């Protein structure tokens, strides 16, 4: 196994002779997307005319389907098939091999047993979407409903320790907290959120003999392929899963849903391609969501601000049958120094749809608590919030004592403070007015873990010099195609236009997919390894070819650049070499595995958010006036796509603080907001002046390229900066997110 020490050596990426690494090049697939010619899963052309499937949802939260009358629907115009719990084909049990913690979510499709409102109980396929929808309204169901536990707040007493998750204690928190001269003990509540991707879950499926091809919208290619194979009770080799373009995932498409299962089953039954897409309402009710979290923060400090005692205890909820913990306390284990520490999680099981990962799981919720608590403690101590954080900056990981791979949190805060104009913040709230608006400033730190998973990639060069990278990786709108093209082009010293990238196919070398902000580092490192292997193969080809000007040279001395392979001043174009010496092209693979000693380092990305808000004292409306973030996240591959990721995360943080939440009806178990008119994410008008910058950084403990993830860091802490700014503006400290006009108005004098 490799060591992180191997990763410090110079590479084509660190040398960056072509200048492609870090360059803000346009999106590889951007033109296809903006011209509407990138086929998403539902739009993929099937080999023969498809039929259309429509799902029917349960109106009860818990119970059993006792009757399903399909007689009317079955004979409705154009109807090809009507399935209910009583006639849906047998499905294999899944989950054991893939991911028992989350893949249980939608298995089996059309179960007789109802476990949440909106669970699918019927499925109609017809020749047109319109006929399928019309017939779906004709299926009659009876249910035996049972009492259900639906409301998180009503069941807090039933919270249990998640299986296998002990609290983490360092020192003696209770004693230190009791003895601390300055103490804070507050509870913060983060909201339940839905992913609300623009593109719904959708699948186009068809069979060719015993083999099924599915185009579907999923973040993890292999997980989807294996899950479907288990469901269909066929070997994975008979399932080809393709996911070329994904209109937003955010963690919500990490798993397979009923569209995939039922499209494949129905296509087999009918011998005809079948398309199935979720409706907007089904996206809310029949996928996963980010659970609400109650977070109790206790801080015990000396008068100078140094923390003696720190505790963050999080209570969250999940679906009864699908254990999932929102790890809202984990981030705090590496953030601030304190000798006595306590962190842990408790879980309430409810009869509502499954909780699951959503962009920056853990941090996105968790930092809403501690980063406000630090603001409150700073005020108690009479310290600037940045100064309080500086006084608690650890030299090594405060829980484990491990060295940090890199940590530029202090510089993020100080650089950000200077550029934002933090010195203009009035330490006393409610002192600044602009017209009718009360104006305030707030800040928060950001931390998010960095990860590397095993992955492979394949790269080939053809006789015309075209280099094609293939990987079972996904691009969920983040820029994966683009950065993989940049890495491949830079590694092989060719112009970007010479590189093609093909992703999202289970036939390609596997990568874990998009999630946990591990995608760029993981897929990119495998692509880099494949590119390095191709360099080796090309060097050996050239130095071993009597017709090459490099013949007889030491392959170790070969360099690549400008589309040429060279030793000293002897060179030839790659396409000429390959056309002559390997006319069928060359294909090699590369792989990455985490270094054996990677866990010897505390490895994170960091940032600092600064926000200025206005509060309308007439209405309690909060409007963002400007926001700025400074981030340190390793080497940046693409200035433009990385900035989009970071600012997109910050915007989600704004939404988390001010707009975005859902609530469960206590009688029905349904979400109150079921469409994008009722579920408020920020509109353009909510995001006035928002920008960010990256600090120079290379993390040579992270992976061979020194990069880190940026997909989730931007949301971590962002909402807390907003809430702190609201407090600074008007003196209202609201600990229950989001800070809607209703709550702000109630808190205003």
């Amino acid at each position, binding site marked *: 196994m490799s060591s992180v020490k191997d990763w410090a050596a110079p590479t084509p990426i660190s040398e960056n002779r072509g200048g492609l690494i870090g360059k803000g090049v346009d999106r590889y697939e951007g033109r296809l997307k903006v011209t509407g010619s990138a086929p998403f899963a539902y739009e993929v052309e099937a080999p023969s005319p498809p039929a259309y499937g429509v799902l029917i*949802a349960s*109106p009860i939260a818990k119970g059993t389907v006792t009757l399903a009358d399909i007689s009317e629907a079955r004979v409705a115009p154009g109807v090809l098939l009507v399935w209910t719990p009583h006639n849906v084909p047998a499905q294999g049990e899944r989950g054991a091999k893939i991911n028992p913690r989350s893949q249980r979510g939608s298995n089996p499709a059309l179960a007789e047993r109802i476990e949440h*409102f909106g669970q699918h109980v019927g499925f109609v396929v017809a020749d047109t979407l*319109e006929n399928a*929808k*019309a017939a779906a*309204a004709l299926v009659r169901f009876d249910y035996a409903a049972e009492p259900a536990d639906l409301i998180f707040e009503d069941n807090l007493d039933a919270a249990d320790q998640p299986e296998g998750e002990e609290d983490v204690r360092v020192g003696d928190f209770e004693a230190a907290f009791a003895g601390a001269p300055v103490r804070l003990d507050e509870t913060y509540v983060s909201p339940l959120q839905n992913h609300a991707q623009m593109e719904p879950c959708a699948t186009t499926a068809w069979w060719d003999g015993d083999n099924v091809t599915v185009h579907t919208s999923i973040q993890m290619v292999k997980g989807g392929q294996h899950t479907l194979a288990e469901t269909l009770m066929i070997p994975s080799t008979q399932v080809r899963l393709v996911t070329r373009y994904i209109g937003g995932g955010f963690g919500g498409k990490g798993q397979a849903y009923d569209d995939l299962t039922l499209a494949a089953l129905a296509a087999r039954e009918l011998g005809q391609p079948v398309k199935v897409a979720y409706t907007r*309402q089904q996206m809310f009710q029949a996928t996963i969501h980010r659970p609400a979290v109650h977070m109790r923060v206790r801080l015990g400090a000396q008068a100078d601000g140094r923390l003696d005692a720190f505790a963050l205890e999080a209570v969250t909820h999940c679906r009864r049958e699908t254990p999932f913990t929102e790890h809202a306390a984990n981030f705090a284990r590496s953030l601030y120094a304190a000798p006595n520490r306590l962190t842990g999680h408790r879980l309430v099981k409810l009869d509502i749809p499954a909780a699951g990962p959503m962009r920056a799981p853990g941090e996105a919720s968790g930092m809403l608590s501690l980063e406000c608590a630090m603001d409150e403690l700073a005020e108690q101590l009479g310290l600037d919030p940045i100064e309080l954080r500086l006084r608690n900056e650890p030299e090594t990981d405060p829980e484990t004592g491990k060295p940090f791979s890199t940590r530029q949190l202090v510089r993020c805060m100080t650089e950000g403070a200077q550029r934002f104009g933090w010195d203009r913040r009035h330490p006393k709230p409610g002192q600044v007015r602009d017209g*009718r608006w009360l104006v305030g400033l707030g800040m928060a730190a950001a931390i998010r873990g960095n990860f590397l998973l095993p992955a492979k990639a394949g790269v080939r060069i053809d006789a015309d010099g075209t280099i094609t990278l293939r990987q079972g990786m996904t691009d969920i709108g983040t820029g994966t195609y683009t950065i993989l093209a940049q890495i491949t082009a830079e590694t092989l010293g060719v112009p970007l236009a010479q590189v093609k990238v093909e992703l999202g196919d289970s036939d390609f070398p596997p990568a874990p997919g998009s999630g946990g902000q591990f995608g760029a580092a993981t897929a990119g490192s495998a692509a880099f390894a494949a590119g390095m292997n191709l360099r080796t193969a090309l060097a050996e080809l050239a130095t071993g070819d009597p017709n090459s000007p490099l013949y007889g040279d030491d392959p170790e001395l070969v360099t690549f650049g400008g589309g040429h392979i060279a030793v000293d001043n002897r060179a030839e174009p790659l396409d000429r070499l390959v056309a002559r010496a390997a006319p069928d092209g060359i294909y090699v693979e590369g792989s990455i595995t985490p270094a054996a000693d990677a866990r010897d380092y505390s490895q994170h990305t960091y940032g600092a958010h600064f926000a200025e808000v206005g509060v*309308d*004292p*007439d*209405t*309690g*409306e909060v*409007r963002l006036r400007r926001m700025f973030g400074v981030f340190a996240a390793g080497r940046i591959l693409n200035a433009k796509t990385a900035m989009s990721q970071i600012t997109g995360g910050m915007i989600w943080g704004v939404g988390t603080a*001010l*707009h975005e939440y859902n*609530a469960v*009806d*206590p*009688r*029905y178990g*349904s979400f*109150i*907001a*079921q*469409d994008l*008119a*009722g579920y*408020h994410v*920020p*509109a*353009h*008008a*909510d995001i006035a002046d928002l920008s960010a910058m990256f600090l120079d950084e290379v993390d040579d403990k992270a992976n061979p390229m020194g990069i880190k993830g940026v997909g989730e860091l931007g949301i971590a802490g962002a909402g807390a900066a907003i809430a702190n700014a609201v407090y600074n503006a008007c003196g209202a400290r609201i600990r229950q997110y989001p800070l*809607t*006009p*209703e709550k702000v*108005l*109630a808190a205003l004098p």
Partner: protein
Amino acid sequence: MKAFTYERPGDVATALALVAEIPGARFLAGGTNLVDLMKLRIEQPTHLVDVSRLPLAEIEDTPEGGLRLGAMTTNSQVAADARVRARYPALAQAILSGASGQLRNKATTAGNLLQRTRCPYFYDTSKPCNKRAPGAGCAAIGGISSNTAIFGASDACIATHPSDMAVALTALDAKVETQSGAGEARVLALEGFHRLPGDTPHVETELRPAEMITAVVLPPPPPGGQIYRKARERASYAFAIGSVAVAGGRVALGAVAHKPWRAEAAELALEQGASPAEAMDAELRAARPDGHNDYKLKLMARLGAACLTTTGAGDGQ
């Protein structure tokens, strides 16, 4: 969506006749609300009579010094009209605070008045709703929506009317001109155009079957200031949680009732010399919050007082 037929007649008389003759027929204007509701099977017309291209899209001066807004004028067109902006700024502000640019380009003056509530229980067809199925009951009562009525609600319905434009039109004392199949023309005050829910919340306006709005007429602008302010959960593209229109001495409130709510008690108090805050208190004395929407009392008191202070309504009485 349920199957339906569609046609686009060339004149008003034909359109009126078609809707009068064909059971289940409906007028289609901008379609920004009706088509969405059809997709959810909340509206299930058998036949759509497209009136969007009838010659009803003019904005004309009236001899009295007001404006006649043709039924098919778009929201964008009205909000951008120089006469509207100069003489009825509250109307322009109200329209521009609603929906999105794309929707305002399609949505019409008449359609805006006839848009249906945004009550989440109206939209969720798995729940009982007296608007969708009269007599079924109201899931919003006892539910968790907080954007419900504080004035004029009934045991059958606590929904609010979602329009911004109609609130400003109420303060501006607009009239609705209609025609029906028999050729009869009527003029209705906008103030009385929408109904309170009572025990028939599915009957939302005084329009008769197959009667069509042909224009909205604005009287000459009243003396005094005008304003429309809207509170909402995000800066754009969100329905009001409370809004206030003031035009001279007339005051209307939005998102508080099944109809644009004319604040007569506040107007009277102002006439009698009350301060803006006292006038709003007088109005809100009749409010009946339900435990989920109590914030609207504080919201409307403050927002209303702020608007009245800005326009100077009641000054010099």
